[in-house]
């Protein structure tokens, strides 16, 4: 009769002294797992140029029409690149199809997951805001 009670108290005591599971969000933030699917972003090369060639396959494959307004242009060496590219995070369902469809590994779902905003416009990313800041990989399986 007393034994189960002690067992239960022991568990409680053990958790009293272990690291808490609850995170103090937003002061503390959780690190997502490596294969977490966050916001889509445009990948840049070491030299800071975008990898995207504006083939629009991500736009075609996107099931929720979150990617739109891709305007291609021709560079001085006949390369094709986008001058406009809109990722609408309010529509994105983070399925990762864009990443899968991209023939140039130029769009990638990063590890960001926060979407709460006062203004919806903030979540509609233009080409500058959709482009990652550093060419670093955010997850080990980046490519």
């Amino acid at each position, binding site marked *: 009769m007393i034994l189960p009670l002690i067992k239960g108290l022991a568990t409680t005591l053990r958790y009293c002294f272990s690291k808490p599971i609850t995170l103090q969000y937003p002061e503390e933030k959780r690190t997502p797992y490596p294969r977490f699917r966050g916001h889509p972003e445009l990948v840049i090369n070491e030299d800071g140029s975008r990898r995207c060639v504006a083939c629009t396959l991500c736009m075609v494959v996107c099931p929720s029409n979150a990617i739109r307004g891709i305007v291609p*242009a*021709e560079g001085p060496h006949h*390369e*094709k690149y986008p001058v406009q590219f809109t990722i609408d995070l309010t529509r994105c369902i983070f399925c990762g199809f864009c990443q899968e469809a991209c*023939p140039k590994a130029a769009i990638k779902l990063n590890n960001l997951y926060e979407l709460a905003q006062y203004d919806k416009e903030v979540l509609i990313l233009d080409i500058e805001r959709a482009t990652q800041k550093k060419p670093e990989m955010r997850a080990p399986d980046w490519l």
Partner: protein
Amino acid sequence: MINLTIDGRAIQAEPGKTILEVARENGIYIPFLCYHPALKPIGSCRICVVEVKPGPPRPLPACATYVAEGQEVVTTSERLTAIRQELMKLVLINHALECPICDKGGECELQDLTHALGVPEVDLTAIPATSPPDYESLLVERHTDRCVTCGRCVRLCRDHVGAMAINFMQRGYFTELGSGLLPLDCEFCGSCIDICPVGALINKQFKYRARAWEVTKTEMVCPFCGGGCSYELHLKDGEIMRVYNGETALLCGRGRFGWPVITSPERLRTPLVRVNGELQEATWEEALAAAAGGLKAVLEEAGPGALYGVGSPRATNEANYLFQKFFRAGLGTNNLDNPGRLHYVKALSALGQVFGWPEVKEADGPHPKPPAYTSPFSVKEETKGSGFTFVLGSLEELPRADAALILGADLTPELPPLGWGVNAARQKDDFQLVVANPRGTKFDRWATVSLRYKPGAERLVVAGLMKALLTAHPDLTPAIPAQGLDDLKESLKKFSLKEYASRAGVEAADLEAAAAILAKAQAPAILFGTELLNQDKGEMNALALADLFLLVGKPGTPGSALYPVAEKANTRGVCELGVLPDRLPGLLPLDSPAAPAFWGEHKPVQTPGPTLLEVLDKLEQDEADAPRALWLLGGDLLRWLPNRSRTEKLLSKVKFMVVQDAFLTDTAKLADVVLPVAIHAEQEGSFISSTGQLGVLKAALGTDGVLPDWQIICRLASALGVPLSYRTPAQIFAEFARQIPLFAGLAPRKVVGRTGIPAELKGTFVLFDLDISLPGRRPFTLIIGKVLQHSGSFTTHEPCGTLVVTPEAAVSLNPEDAAQLELKAGDKARVISSHGEVEAKVALDPLLPAGVAFLPEHFAQPAAQMLTLNSNLVRVSIQKA
């Protein structure tokens, strides 16, 4: 019919067809790469191999194997799949995998084939191809690393376009397509782009602007020349991306690359009204009120005869029909004409004299509620047609001609589809070509006989031909009942054959050889252009040719027909719809029993109105019945009428002038009210091409402030007390089609008079004069004509695509003449005639004979018509500027 089985399915097929054609007709899929329905099969890619029993043990190419009785064809088997996959691997071994940036991606036949054949991976390696892409060529970009060497472009360019600009270079594995390591120097028609199965040939206008699947497609008729080609207009977000023709791939440069002209900043977007001598922008209401007010004042002061109307060969049939309806049913006058008076109307008039004006009797109908742009009449057994419409040929049958005479036309610049038709005809072994032109043209190289006559000597050449014909075959009888042959023979006695030849500047033996070709031909076609119609005696030239056709032609035999060039998109339509002072819609005579239908409440007027040229004479002599007001439905009279300074003086005598045009032309600058019109795909409507085909324009673009012609006419006519009200152009078409039995059976892409109407033809030989003197003593004969990249003045506005090829007009001279004048290519020269002078850049053209110069008429500067008197031929002197 032949019975065979394909994959076990019993199929009946016409003899002479290939297995691939029969399979495609029956919806059986056989993959192919080098085959294209518009080209002769060569069986080089071998992707289309099928097993055929009875036959050799190896598979045969379906595209080059003809069907035979009792054949058993197997299109899919393990062996065939293995062969096809292996061949695909060899094609893909070196194919640049640039699909994400290749404009063909999404509509690429190689992509589709790779999917269809399930090629898993390419496990072969090879030396990579190294030749760099050609970014230098105008309008077309070439990527040899994407080429699959199917040879479609090479065959199309050689056999159908006739430019021979692309060919294979190198051999075997290293074969690539090229143009002698130089940028393309060709006709810039871009047909190779649409026939290329992959992205080896790319349209520079389309490059990187849209993906193939993003565009919405509208099929419509080309609004440039009178060729009547159909193409697809590809739009994205309401903007034109490109012009595409997947069916036959053939289009000319202005059709394919000319569309940017509709975005030109020179376009008029708001109406203009003359206030205190200056044209000022106004709203539509103000402008229409000003136009109506001005016209009303003139009509009230001097009666309905004081207004003269000029229809437009660029406006749709519907607009032109309403225009003549306003004059006939509204005002009760015949005071209207169209600019075709200077060329095409002369041909019609001559053909009318020789073969009679067209008439269709006993057509079945009108049926109620026909589909849009379809005639309510159909052809029944008793239906009978007569008149010249039935000797005018269609484009479809031109390749069936076994001999052709091209006279006075640089065919490809004047009407590219006729050029392709002749090229298709010459694929037959027994085809013989006679080319007669004062200038050398592209077709000379394929001509059996080439006649280089003196400018203006067309009638002597034709008379010489007839003389030679009748001498060699004295008992030659025309194929249809004809009168007046004896008179013609008598009139030809004026000169001997030698004299005809020497006066025309050709060899008598050549005339005899050409006559022999025409006499022997079972289906001779005669093609002639505006170059000879534009002369002051253009009608005589056309008469001579009509007589020649009556003599040697075999009307009723497919391919044997007359092909006069109607220059602009609707030059033929504007005439067929009765914008003529002496003909009603359907080319009916003014005294026709059907006439009252066109006159509304007015009594039919049976006296023809003055022609456009007579109006100018009336203005010059200040006659009492000279028009005081003009309504121009487009058409820059100053630029197209000969003797520009005279036209300018006479137009300024007109009290009030209303001009509808898309651009502020020199004529529009003289107007009191200018109303901007919708062009190209901004409006709906129909055109009748030079060869009689009905084409339909679709409104695919927004109008951005302008209005279609028909709406302007409705609003202006209503403001003038002639209520005209229609909802759609199709409704207007339905109205006039009910009154025109000649259009029986006509529908989009059908040809006027070629809808199965049995024709009863007869002809009369009409004598023509043989006087060819060209006044003046100046040393050069200047021919004013057309160049390939331009259609009227329409294509001379930036940013029209063809302007990169031909940006300006140059006076072409024979190099020896130029050397004598100490002129080099690019120098400025003064061209002086008795009527005026212009300054133009010099171009050297070895195809021009000595003493002949050529100046294109399209451009505002140099204004070619400053030099002319009453013809497109004029004697000039040329000096260094």
